């Protein structure tokens, strides 16, 4: 076995040879090798300083005591501190003042949008466009109130929620409780449809008008324009909280409706609720 040193075109071998096949020696570049050694030294230092080895019920904590949880907590704290200036201003101002100050308004809109996505979007939709039974917050029609203070009140205490200050009312189940027989429910439904020009049976609608006057005007008003105090929807406009087809209207009169909006006063801090109120008010329908 002969170790051959490189001359041009003659590669170095390890001296190993089997049946005429030689094992060539192709060393790593030096810088590569040294970087490799450096990573070994680095990893030993890392084991000592940082959390690294899993143990049976715990892990090695490392001399630096680093923890990603603590780091997240620090970052959240830093983020709160960075926002403190504006949050303090929002805490100190009333909603109208925030809405009138372009700088605070922008801050509140950004914060409100984030809070809306986290808390409100599951029911009202990411774009606040609502869904069947969940009001569209962008249009100009409100069940309870579309003013800044009214929106704040709704967010804080909810609707039909477990809260002493909650907004509450009930659409009775006229059919289930036997208050109205099915034929009369049909007539009222025709009348309600006729208010926005959708009736198919004019005679039934006329009969329904009388039934409406007796049973529904208490809440919905003589012109069926609704009542913010009772959360009674306007039945004469073109918008429907539940669908505007006849079967759904019949179902509503028959079984009643009692949508629920949770109370947020115990879950969100007052500044966030203010930001949300500003945000919802700015979605286009604010009064």
């Amino acid at each position, binding site marked *: 076995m002969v170790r051959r040193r*490189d*001359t*041009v075109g003659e590669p*170095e071998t390890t001296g190993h040879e089997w049946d005429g096949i030689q094992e060539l020696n192709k*060393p790593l570049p030096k810088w590569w090798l040294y970087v490799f050694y450096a990573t070994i030294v680095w990893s030993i230092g890392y084991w000592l300083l940082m959390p690294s080895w899993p143990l049976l019920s715990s892990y090695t904590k490392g001399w630096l005591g680093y923890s990603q949880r603590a780091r997240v907590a620090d970052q959240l704290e830093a983020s709160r501190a960075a926002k403190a200036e504006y949050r303090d201003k929002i805490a100190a101002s009333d909603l109208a003042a925030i*809405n*009138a100050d*372009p700088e605070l*308004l*922008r801050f509140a*809109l950004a914060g409100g949008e984030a809070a809306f996505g986290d808390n409100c979007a599951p029911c009202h*939709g*990411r*774009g606040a*466009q609502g869904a069947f039974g969940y009001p*569209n917050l*962008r*249009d*100009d*029609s409100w069940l309870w109130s579309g003013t800044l203070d009214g929106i704040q009140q709704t967010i804080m205490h909810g609707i039909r929620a477990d809260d002493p200050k909650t907004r509450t009312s009930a659409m009775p189940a006229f059919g289930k409780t036997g208050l109205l027989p099915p034929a009369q429910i049909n007539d009222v439904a025709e009348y309600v449809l006729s208010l926005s020009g959708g009736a198919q049976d004019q005679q039934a609608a006329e009969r329904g008008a009388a039934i409406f006057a007796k049973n529904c005007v208490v809440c919905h008003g003589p012109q069926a324009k609704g009542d913010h105090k009772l959360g009674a929807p*306007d039945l004469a*406009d*073109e*918008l429907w909280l539940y669908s505007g087809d006849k079967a759904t209207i019949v179902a509503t009169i028959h079984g009643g409706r009692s949508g629920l909006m949770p109370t947020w006063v115990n879950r969100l801090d007052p500044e966030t609720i203010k930001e949300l109120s500003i945000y919802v008010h*700015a*979605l*286009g*329908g*604010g009064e």
Partner: protein
Amino acid sequence: MQNLQSYSRDAALDSAEAGAPQGEAAPGIARSDAPTVHGGGETPLYAARVKVYPKRARGTFRTVKWIVMAITLSIYYLVPWLRWDRGPYLPDQAVLIDFPSRRFYFFFLEIWPQEFYFITGLLVLAALALFLFTSIAGRVWCGYACPQTVWTDLMIAVERSFQGDRNQRMRLDKTPWAFETLWRKGATHVTWLLIAIATGGAWVFYFADAPTLSRQLVNFEAPMLAYVFIGIFTTTTYLLGGIAREQVCIYMCPWPRIQGGMVDRDSLLISYRGWRGEPRGPHKAGQSWEGRGDCVDCRQCVAVCPTGIDIRHGSQLECIQCALCIDACNEIMDKVGRPTGLIAYDTVRSLESAGKEGLSLNLVRPRVVLYSAAIAVVGAIMLTALILRPELEINVLHDRNPLYVKLSDGGIRNGYTIKLLNKSSAPRDFRVAVKGLPGAEVTVVGQEKEPDPVITVPADDLQSLRAYVTLDKTANAPLPAADAAFFFVVTSADGAAEAEHESTFQGPER
């Protein structure tokens, strides 16, 4: 290139491989024993570095290089300290890359992130200029202006001032642990590190107000990032300029590989005029110059070469075309009483004619013309874009979720996020209106009750606002399809600036 090498290859390799014998090249002119480190033919894939000890050169090109070095280094170190008045709202540093507020200031020019194409254009121009210069005069960039060349040159000058010229440096390396070696080398490395720190220090000044940052740096109050970048640039300057030197040019830089495709038979390259020099050999006192070449084989061109090549092998990858061999050779030619220019800027065409055609610079060549034309076109496009650059811009983003909102009276409302860019150096007031959508009502969030909302945008800033466009039932009835195109028009309160942006009004399918 191949035939160019052929005349010199054999003689050169002979003497190189004979171990570079000592002796006199001509009366009073010692023959240098400098070995040809690079470019001497085939080399093995695994080769340990052979240290190059460049000898000092003196002459025209050396002087030019000192001047270029002084100019380029002055630009690099001093430009961050230049001031440029931009009024009360903007920074007064002439050249500033302001990452926190996302602006690039260059004297009269201020570039926003979305105008990065100006930087792209500048880089394209720089690349084209590099191609043009290369096709005219070879690697002039490498030889004179490349930072690697300039800093290496500076580091070698420092080395020479502490350790002496080539021979003294080689002598010091033979006694690595002698006190003299240690202090001379120590002083060299300390000076290199100081230069490297200054280089890194100057770099960070381009990214922050230089006077403020320098105070912070001295008081250890500067951001950690500044120290990190000074550290990175100190390391790279010290390693690349002080230690690695020609290795960077030969092994790391892609340019030597590319430039081979850019020169042609009319490019000015630093060349050994073999037709004049061969046959080479030592010249004895009183010997006639008839029947022999002018090259006395003194190897001074090899001794001064910072990359350790023998230019007599012809144009080669390792040659950075620094022209120091021209100076070295001219000095010898003067001494032996022969005309200078045995090594000179010359073209392959002229070399092949053995000097009979003379050296004529032919600039009307396809590649020179094409590169020049490309530079002119790109430059004109950039200049036009710069002159037509608006001071006010508007961007409109239609809400995607929901696309439209139906209102209680049957009207339709669309929401938009509008961004107003005020590129002037003073705050301005703007009004927003729509064009091309009859019956449309615009409301701006926060100013719903204002009949004539005015939006104030701070100086050199962007303001985002929410706006709603509403069409009532009668106005939206004639809309032809699900969406209609219209324009948002923004006008400055003084009426001096106006910008518009197309958007769409969406409604239910009809």
